[in-house]
């Protein structure tokens, strides 16, 4: 069969949708789908934030709030974790930003399979609805912790061990279907539908992050799916995959011979890559934000690309570092500690490169830039505590303490959210066509950034004291000094202040949508293709008459001898205006 590459095909005729529903609801346009994904994800994310606030109220001021009892506390904790990791971060980074940016950045008109893309969103929405419904079923949502470890997940005594866990597993299954449809689209679009001149090694790092993360998702979610199916059968069909023989409430349970460790292996074979599914798009986006606002090319582009790919690959062979205290064979610990520490190398390369990108740059301290720099701090911080936990001997006393909570919130919670804010502020002028309020944005940044440290730094200390995570209250344990209790109250207060500060962000986004000044074309002076559309915000079909042709990589900032301090990717060398006194020569 004669196969013609997409970029060589003659101009296709676009069918423009008419009417409100086909334009904004059942839309096939990747930009509308992205916004649908983004708004849904942020809405459940706000819910998860409120849940964490309720947890902090209990921890900071025990015995004060009658509506929080041990059961509801565990439910809040479980749902907070699950929503944040899967339904907010994965959905917002890949479903939201992936959808919006991939076609614009590679210079195509839409995803390769727009219909599948739309289906992906509606399936995701269904999974969210099922998850929300689990709060209202008899027994409430599951309270097993976001890892859903058996056997306690299915035993009486854990809240939501009847319907709650079923709803959770069904919702995860639906989410995986949704993600698969989306992820296939993202990967295929990046591989096959790039415009003329856009080689893989000219792509902005955002795309490399999203591409690798989508591919990882397609390989990691199967493990979660299998674990969910097996647990579902344990629950409904009476099998014993994960359930050992146990006495529960004075009676022997109906199961015997299952292996809880098998579940942990399956879960973390998904769970660890999931950390990087969330982190890699963030790595990519922060690189682009830093380069644009520092008016400098990203330092070590090729190294950055390979670091992303290598981190993605390595993340599949480190999963059991979550299981050092699970009773797994100790020699496994040696292997997994080694692979875990090896990941620090490409990660450190990335951090050095971000810092060197800033070095002697022409830094514009805009709101997105502030968040991007904030990310470098929080990520380095969380990464360093990861080195502690990656070593078996140090992990054993620290496992399941507040140190772990502090570590993963710094490294994948706060850091990723910092990048999300940077990205939302950075691309807001493109998506809405309006500029946000800068003063409000800076307030938002400083309260969030400082509040992050006042919230999570003391948790490291509490972890060293041996305070266990997931406990409803610390009670009278002798090893917990009085000061730790007041520290907990302080953490809660700062967490709630940070939470309230997010209202500034929401107000800013909504207010600027109508009242913000018009952003105009390419307000940050960025080189990548998404800023070069004929209309702002880009219209259906993105590129008007003709798709762009790419002539250079995405990081031509402050090129010596060139008049402007940036050269868009689609500008041919002949069109670049040189400074008058510089020798005429091609530089790109």
């Amino acid at each position: 069969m004669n196969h013609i590459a997409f970029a060589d095909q003659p101009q296709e005729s676009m069918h423009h949708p008419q009417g409100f529903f086909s334009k904004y609801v059942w839309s096939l346009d990747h930009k509308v789908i992205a916004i649908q994904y983004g708004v849904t994800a942020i809405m459940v994310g706000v819910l998860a934030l409120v849940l964490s606030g309720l947890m902090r109220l209990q921890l900071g001021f025990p015995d004060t709030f009658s509506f929080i009892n041990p059961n509801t506390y565990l439910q809040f904790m479980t749902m907070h974790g699950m929503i944040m990791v899967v339904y907010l971060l994965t959905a917002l980074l890949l479903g939201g930003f992936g959808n919006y940016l991939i076609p614009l950045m590679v210079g195509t008109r839409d995803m390769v399979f727009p219909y599948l893309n739309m289906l992906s969103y509606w399936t995701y929405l269904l999974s969210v609805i099922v998850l929300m419904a689990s709060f209202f079923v008899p027994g409430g949502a599951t309270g097993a912790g976001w890892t859903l470890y058996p056997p306690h997940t299915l035993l009486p005594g854990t809240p939501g061990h009847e319907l709650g866990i079923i709803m959770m597993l069904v919702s995860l299954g639906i989410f995986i279907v949704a993600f698969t449809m989306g992820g296939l689209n993202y990967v295929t679009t990046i591989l096959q539908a790039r415009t003329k001149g856009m080689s893989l090694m000219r792509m902005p790092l955002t795309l490399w992050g999203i591409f690798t993360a989508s591919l990882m998702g397609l390989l990691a979610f199967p493990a979660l799916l299998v674990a969910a199916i097996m647990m579902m059968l344990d629950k409904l069909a009476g099998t014993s995959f994960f359930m050992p023989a146990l006495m529960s409430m004075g009676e022997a349970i109906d199961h015997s011979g299952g292996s809880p460790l098998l579940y942990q292996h399956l879960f973390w074979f998904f769970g660890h890559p999931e950390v990087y599914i969330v982190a890699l798009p963030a790595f990519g986006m922060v690189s682009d934000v830093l380069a644009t606002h520092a008016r400098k090319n990203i330092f070590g582009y090729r190294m950055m690309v390979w670091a992303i790919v290598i981190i993605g690959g390595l993340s599949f062979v480190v999963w059991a570092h979550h299981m050092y205290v699970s009773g797994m064979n100790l020699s496994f610990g040696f292997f997994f500690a080694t692979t875990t520490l090896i990941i620090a190398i490409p990660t450190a390369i990335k951090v050095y490169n971000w810092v060197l990108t800033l070095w002697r740059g022409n830094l514009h301290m805009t709101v997105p830039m502030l968040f991007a720099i904030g990310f470098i701090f929080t990520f380095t911080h969380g990464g360093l505590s990861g080195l502690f936990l990656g070593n078996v001997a140090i992990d054993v006393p620290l496992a399941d303490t507040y140190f772990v909570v502090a570590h993963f919130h710094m490294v994948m919670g706060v850091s990723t959210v910092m990048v999300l804010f940077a990205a939302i502020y950075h691309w807001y002028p493109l998506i809405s066509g309006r500029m946000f309020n800068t003063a409000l944005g800076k307030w938002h940044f400083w309260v969030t950034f400082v509040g992050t440290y006042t919230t999570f730094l003391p948790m490291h200390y509490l972890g060293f004291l041996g305070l266990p995570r997931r406990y409803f209250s610390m009670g009278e344990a002798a090893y917990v000094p009085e000061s730790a209790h007041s520290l907990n109250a302080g953490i809660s207060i700062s967490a709630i202040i940070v939470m309230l500060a997010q209202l500034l962000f929401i107000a800013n986004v909504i207010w600027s949508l109508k009242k913000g000044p018009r952003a105009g074309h390419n307000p940050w002076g960025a080189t990548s293709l998404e800023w070069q559309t004929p209309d702002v915000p880009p219209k259906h079909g993105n590129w008007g008459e003709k798709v762009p042709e790419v002539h250079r990589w995405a990081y031509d900032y402050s090129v010596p001898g060139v008049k402007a301090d940036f050269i868009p990717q689609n500008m041919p060398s002949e069109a670049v205006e040189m400074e008058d006194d510089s020798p005429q020569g091609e530089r790109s």
Partner: protein
Amino acid sequence: MSDAKPTVAGTGDSWSGLVSDFSADKETFPIPWGKLMMWIFLIGDTFIFGIFLIAYMAVRMSVTDPWPDTVELFAMTIGGTTFPLLLIAIMTFILITSSGTMAMAVNYAYRGDKRKTVLFMALTAVMGLVFVSLQAYEWAKLIFVDGIRPWGNPLGASQFGAIFFMITGFHGLHVLGGVIYIALVARKVHKGHYEKKGYSIVEITGLYWHFVDLVWVFIFAFFYLW
């Protein structure tokens, strides 16, 4: 960065040549989008089945009760003679043969022979259905004659029923899904839907079908021969 010299595959510095060939602009793989998408999906699906089978191995290694003797359990008695693994041999034969008919359907599709394409696709789908029916028969025998349940097994390890029904059931659903997929595509081929678009969809359907067959070979080896 713009110094992307045209590189001929197999010449010069081979690693960087490979990278720049692979990352050149436009399309990374000179195949239709749908076909690449199916390949990537199948890699993900390989992970699903791979993890299922690894879980099976983990279970098999850790059980303390004896595992049922598969040669006896899956034997079939016809006219007083007991043939070990006869039913499963027939099922496997049918499924592998259906891969052959699917390949012929792809061949005729690219030649533009609509009638024969539909014929061979229908044949493939029918064989898929026969496979699923025989599997249902086998399940019925295990459940009603041998008394094997997901939660118990009179012949030994109770995990046997659980893992057997789960994995063969998951595979059976894949076959059933494939039958529906083939039927839908065959109907569209019959209606002439692909005369302008080209018939790569038949090959894509075929990829899925061959994958389902290949997975069966592994399940066969792990459950019936081990």
